[in-house]
């Protein structure tokens, strides 16, 4: 009988024994943030959130999340830096060059057939992907007829994205990525270097609208031909992923395109059937007819 009990125990993976007090405090803190600041992190993936909140405890010199919650509720000036902790993502220009190569080769030929284009970059953080895509579209002769919506929930990140200024020591990496993405020209055509920084071209920004938008709480605002949302869905739980993918599906025009992060997948999503693979390895999808 003992053997049977053991076998049953081994076959049912146990629910993880997460620290119960930390879990309670985390839930209360996320509720407090939602109620006071209207940012909804309640459906974010737990593991990354736990790690970020632990780092935040050190940064804000708090012993517990309860203490952090107390300060957040009574000192609103603490919220913007915390929001940075919870959301900011540092990416590179043309991160995963193969993704941008796939867009050039597999998506751009379809985009050429539209007289005017709208592109949505969801969760643009500090803008690296926005400038990558703007440069790619300029190189392909499409930017002049394109409007790019770059959205994020963090107003500070949006300001940084809009500024389009990056440290010069990151530029060699950007340049190499850009070259590997199959670019016809040189990245240096698109920025001005000064005082150790690279300032990206104003003429790119003319085609970009930066705006505050939450995949957790807001709805669709435009019809677009391409959605690019990379390394954002990994921070969401499955329900929130489904919500976000539902927004993309709704925003996309008939047979529109969707690009996601190189390790993200639609496999576990309620919307998996609505999309077909265009470039499997590079995570480029296309909305199915009628979906």
């Amino acid at each position: 009988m003992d053997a049977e009990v053991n076998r049953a125990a081994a076959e049912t993976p146990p629910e993880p024994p997460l620290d119960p007090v930390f879990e309670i405090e985390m839930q209360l803190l996320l509720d407090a943030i939602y109620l006071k600041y209207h940012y909804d992190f309640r459906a974010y993936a737990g593991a990354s959130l736990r790690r970020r909140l632990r780092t935040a405890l050190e940064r804000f010199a708090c012993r517990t999340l309860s203490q952090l919650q107390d300060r957040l509720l009574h000192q609103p000036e603490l919220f913007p830096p915390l929001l940075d902790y919870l959301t900011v993502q540092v990416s590179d220009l043309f991160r995963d060059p193969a993704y941008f190569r796939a867009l050039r080769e597999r998506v751009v030929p379809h985009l050429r057939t539209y007289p005017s284009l709208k592109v949505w970059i969801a969760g643009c953080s500090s803008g690296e992907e926005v400038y990558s895509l703007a440069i790619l579209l300029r190189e392909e002769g499409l930017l002049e007829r394109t409007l790019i919506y770059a959205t994020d929930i963090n107003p500070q990140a949006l300001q940084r994205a809009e500024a389009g200024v990056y440290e010069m020591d990151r530029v060699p990496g950007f340049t190499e990525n850009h070259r590997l993405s199959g670019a016809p020209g040189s990245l240096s055509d698109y920025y001005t270097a000064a005082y150790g920084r690279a300032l990206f071209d104003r003429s790119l920004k003319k085609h970009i609208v930066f705006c505050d938008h939450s995949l957790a709480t807001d709805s669709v605002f435009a019809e677009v031909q391409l959605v690019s949302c990379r390394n954002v869905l990994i921070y969401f739980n499955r329900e929130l992923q489904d919500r976000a993918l539902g927004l993309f599906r709704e925003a996309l025009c008939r047979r529109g395109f969707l690009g996601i992060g190189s390790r993200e997948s639609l496999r576990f999503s309620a919307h998996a059937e609505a999309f077909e693979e265009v470039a499997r390895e590079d995570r480029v999808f296309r909305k199915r007819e009628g979906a």
Partner: protein
Amino acid sequence: MNDVAFAQRRIDAVVIGASAGGIEALGLLLPALPAQLRAPVLIVQHIPRDRPSLLVDIFAPRCARPVREADDKEPVAPGTVYFAPPDYHLLVDRGPQLALSADELVHFSRPSIDVLFESAADAYGAHLLGIILSGANDDGAAGLAAVHRAGGMAVVQDPRGAQAETMPAAALQRTAAALVMSLEAIRDLLHALERDHAA
């Protein structure tokens, strides 16, 4: 290793961290994993961030258990070996389920051993076995300490036998109570996991 103490433990998952010299060390450990292994084995081996990883190609043909690169939101399958993909942190979430993150580098590394070990310590608590192998930086020291703090079992490859001793030495300095074992002893320990479970 004290077999009696070990037999009293239920190990639900194994996490392994390795850097320089790690591939050789894993070459001794992974092919020896028993075919009936139930605990999943999650591995961060430091690799270049800018190119595809060959780890699955290297180890899958030599192992009795399935060897895969981890995907986001994938349920942790029993007895499966998962490698963290290049340029992403690998974490364990409720479920248990795998999770990836593109958060900043930790100890100049993504994937980072600390990130995996700390999240796995949250998820598996006392039922986790954490192993630090050869390496030339101190990623993993904080992670192994977290495993130990949560009541899990902390094992460090004997720095004297490791190709690069910095990483195991740093882990030992942080967690003095960790068990110091030769690679061969670690191999036998992983084998004993299944035997003691079945007993």
